[in-house]
């Protein structure tokens, strides 16, 4: 859906605010610490029911308030839609669609999709494999909410299996073995499904990634290769069996989708260790652009672009290239400086201490 109007109540440093967003580009201007990122975070919350800054919900509630409320009015398939999320400081929040509470909050996923660009994206390239796995899984959830259930299931099985390993104290009794067999089978079922979905996604992403990177950096061959933590032709079941003794001794699950890597390369060299800062930045942007393109293609609807302070980190050349490459559709861009050259905002909002004008 496209967001026409947004309300934030006791969200971050906003007490109560209403914002109208353009169908195309809205630019949010303000000095640092005034509430630019928080505004995007509010929109993002309605898409994923979590903060893209990766903080717990209670950080989102204005300090001293019992709960935050984020509401958006928009249009989806030419029907008007009002989505609203209540975020209490503790416990489970409520989600309402057209004023009707949803039985399961998860059912909101897919109503609003977003692509977030943030300065932290550099970590996608420079950081550890967890960030890259999360990137893939987030895109999968955008493509279909069923992937959220899959991801949660895999995490849950892993927690159960790891707990059992620790409870065993390293000793494999017959009783532990039969129960472990069952958790292994669960991990195989859900883990292999998750990996299959990641592999399929990566295949769709790769051409888009190459295209976006070429547009940003003017050339260079990008590769993104899935490196499973186990020999994939043998299957996860065999790998778990082979790893069982080690797993028991160390009290951790050493193979599985939670240990996999997505190796990024530029011109045949690992991007994490060999690429220049500028190349890494271009690759991070390209990952976001590629995700956006794939979600748009598969769902038939462009996600809302949220660009948080990304132009300040870019040199003139890359900044210009990014503006050129930005897909059409709704976008909200924040900046502490001037509006990036070439961008044509339909609306400009100024933010100061959680007040919009």
């Amino acid at each position, binding site marked *: 859906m496209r967001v026409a109007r947004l309300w934030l109540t006791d969200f971050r440093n906003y007490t109560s605010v209403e914002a109208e967003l353009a169908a195309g580009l809205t630019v949010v201007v303000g000095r640092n610490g005034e509430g630019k990122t928080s505004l995007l975070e509010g929109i993002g919350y309605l898409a994923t029911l979590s903060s893209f800054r990766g903080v717990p919900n209670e950080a989102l509630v204005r300090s001293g308030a019992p709960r935050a409320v984020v509401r958006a009015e928009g249009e989806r398939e030419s029907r008007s839609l009002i989505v609203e999320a209540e975020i209490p400081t*503790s416990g489970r929040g409520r989600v309402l669609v057209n004023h009707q509470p949803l039985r*399961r909050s998860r059912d909101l996923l897919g109503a609003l999709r977003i692509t977030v660009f943030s300065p932290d994206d550099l970590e996608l390239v420079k950081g550890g494999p967890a960030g890259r796995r999360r990137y893939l899984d987030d895109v999968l959830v955008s493509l279909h909410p069923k992937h959220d259930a899959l991801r949660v*299931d895999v995490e849950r099985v892993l927690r*159960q299996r790891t*707990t059992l390993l620790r409870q065993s104290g390293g000793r494999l009794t017959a009783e532990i073995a*039969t*129960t472990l067999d069952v958790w292994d089978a669960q991990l195989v079922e859900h883990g292999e499904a998750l990996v299959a979905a990641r592999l399929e996604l990566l295949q769709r992403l790769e051409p888009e990634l190459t295209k976006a990177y070429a547009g940003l950096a003017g050339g260079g061959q990008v590769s993104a290769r899935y490196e499973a933590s186990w020999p994939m032709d043998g299957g996860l079941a065999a790998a778990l069996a082979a790893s069982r003794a080690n797993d028991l001794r160390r009290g951790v699950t050493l193979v599985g989708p939670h240990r996999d890597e997505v190796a990024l390369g530029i011109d045949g060299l690992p991007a994490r260790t060999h690429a220049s800062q500028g190349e890494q930045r271009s690759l991070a942007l390209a990952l976001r652009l590629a995700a956006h393109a794939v979600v748009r293609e598969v769902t038939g609807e462009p996600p809302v672009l949220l660009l948080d302070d990304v132009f300040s980190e870019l040199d003139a050349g890359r900044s210009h290239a990014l503006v050129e490459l930005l897909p059409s559709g709704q976008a909200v861009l924040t900046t502490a400086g001037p509006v990036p050259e070439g961008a044509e905002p339909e609306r400009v909002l100024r933010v100061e201490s959680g007040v919009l004008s």
Partner: protein
Amino acid sequence: MYAGPVQDLIDELGRLPGVGPKSAQRIAFHLLKLPKDDALRLASVITEVKERISFCRRCFNVCEGEECELCLDTRRDPTLVCVVEEPRDIVAVEKTQEFKGRYHVLQGAISPIEGIGPEQLRVKELLARMDAEGIAEVILCTNPNIEGEATAMYLARLLKPLGVKVTRIASGLPVGGDLEYADELTLGRALEGRREVEA
């Protein structure tokens, strides 16, 4: 901290499932404000269930006396057993009016995180019923979540070698959902479309 009995009440309430410290406090103060008769009625029904109600010695459903009504009902097919996690799941299955066999309540599902292994469940008792009651088919009606699936798989692996038919309710249930919340229609369809489990 509050004075003696008030804090005791908060502590006891806080031990109930799904009740955190904040809710425990809220409920405690609600009870304090309640008219005396209302509060004592609550206390007396708690006493009464603890005195009169226990678990059926055959299926571990809640019952008055030794065996529950469902086990005593001679019109029900004794060769068909539906395995559920909790007594409340029996209520959910009964509402569908699709099932005419007997039940077995596990009193939970396998979950190492909660310290529940097969030994904490009524698994041995289920196995003992197979021969004793001539059970031909077991329908595994555990919740369609990770723990329910793991429990179903565990039971299937124990039961299949005994030569009984083992089926699992078909999905149609919301993913990650609890049986208790499934509406009657979905649950009824799920029972009709039950499938054999891989062991």
